[in-house]
């Protein structure tokens, strides 16, 4: 992988993460993350839309004139979302029913038009594709971690309702940490989403701070520099 791609991946997954740093697409992020599987499902759908829209916008970037740029992006994104919604309704009907309105609402996820406008419309196809995957991957990771956190605290389980995404065989994947289906209700309710996201952002900032401090001390800087070269 060359340096530019590596940079794009680390930007999408960590440094410029859609959910934790750009704080875009918070509405679906907060709303559907009451279980791990819901988070993963919406994450995958969003990643597919990001990839499709980034690739399409990059492919047509030479034909678009500045004045029709935004309407064309909106058309591309709306078409991609509708197509993916129909495909989900056809093949992942249970998950489609659970995610409900949040699949069509991917259209309004600012992260997607943001990437189209600020990145895909000026870069070659391969970079736009990598960027779409990395940004989508970063968003999915946040959705899954937040979903797992809330499910764990709220229900005491992990991977419940996995069959919605992975088929009947997955109905046994559910891990119960304690008997029954009880937990701290707050975690599943909307405020739990805010607490959870706040916690994740704080942890990310702590890690970044810690890294920055280690990079500053000369002892740690030397081996780090050696590794980088």
């Amino acid at each position, binding site marked *: 992988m060359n340096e530019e791609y590596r940079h794009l991946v680390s930007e999408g997954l960590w440094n410029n993460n859609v959910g934790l740093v750009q704080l875009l697409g918070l509405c679906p992020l907060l709303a559907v993350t009451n279980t791990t599987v819901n988070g993963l499902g919406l994450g995958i759908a969003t990643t597919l839309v990001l990839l499709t829209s980034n690739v399409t916008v990059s492919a047509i970037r030479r034909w678009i*004139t500045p004045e*029709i740029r935004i309407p064309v992006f909106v*058309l591309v994104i709306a078409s991609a979302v*509708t197509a993916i919604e*129909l495909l989900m*309704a*056809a093949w992942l009907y249970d998950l489609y029913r659970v995610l409900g309105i949040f699949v069509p609402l991917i259209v309004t996820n600012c992260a997607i038009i943001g990437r189209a406008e600020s990145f895909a419309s000026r870069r070659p196809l391969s970079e736009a594709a990598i960027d779409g995957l990395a940004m989508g991957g970063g968003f999915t990771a946040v959705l899954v971690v937040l979903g797992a956190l809330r499910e764990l605290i709220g*229900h005491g389980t992990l991977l419940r309702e996995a069959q919605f995404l992975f088929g009947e065989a997955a109905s046994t994947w559910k891990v119960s940490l304690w008997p029954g289906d009880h937990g701290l*209700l707050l975690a599943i*309710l909307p405020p739990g989403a805010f607490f959870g996201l706040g916690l994740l952002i704080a942890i990310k900032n702590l890690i970044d701070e810690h890294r920055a401090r280690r990079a500053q001390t000369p002892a740690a800087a030397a081996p780090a520099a050696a590794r980088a070269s």
Partner: protein
Amino acid sequence: MRLDPALRAPLLLGAFALAGALLVAGIHAYTAPRIAENERQVLLRGIHDVIPADAYDNDVLRDTVTVQDPLLGTDEPMTAYIARKQGRPAGVILPVVAPNGYSGPIRLLVGILADGRIGGVRVLAHKETPGLGDKIERSHSDWILQFTGRGLGDPPPDQWAVKRDGGAFDQFTGATISPRAVVQAVKNALLYFQANKDRLFASAAAREPQA
């Protein structure tokens, strides 16, 4: 030849709109039968939950009647399904709305056998509190099963309420409103069935020659 830019932009935009519409139309045409089949399966699964599969032998999804009555919890016309075995009425599957849920209406499917006993009740859609009111769902607790086999005489009509209101049905710890709404809605469905039984089954019988 270069197009006038003032013309080029709208033409381009039109071309993109057309391409997008064609793509969506194509995928829609391709997935529509599969989506319709998914919806049919979900409905059929719901019907099997409220009327035993061996209680009827007709194509319930086509043997429908439009019902509209305040007792069903809404003023909107809804579709009821008639179950018959060898042409004789076996039961009816009524869509019922409990309008007084804790956070909005609760949509139910109530199966009533021809003798007035309940074949089963299931919640189709609700917005009750996760962890409390959502125990009305079959996937969260067995609570909804207690209606099966009951009727207006069992318990007597004045006992059709949750225990806190002096009735015969359990509520949940921490949540009385959701069970109360459901019990009330099921009772109303039974009252509706009692009053309209002949009309429901007659319309089904009248439909038979066409089917």
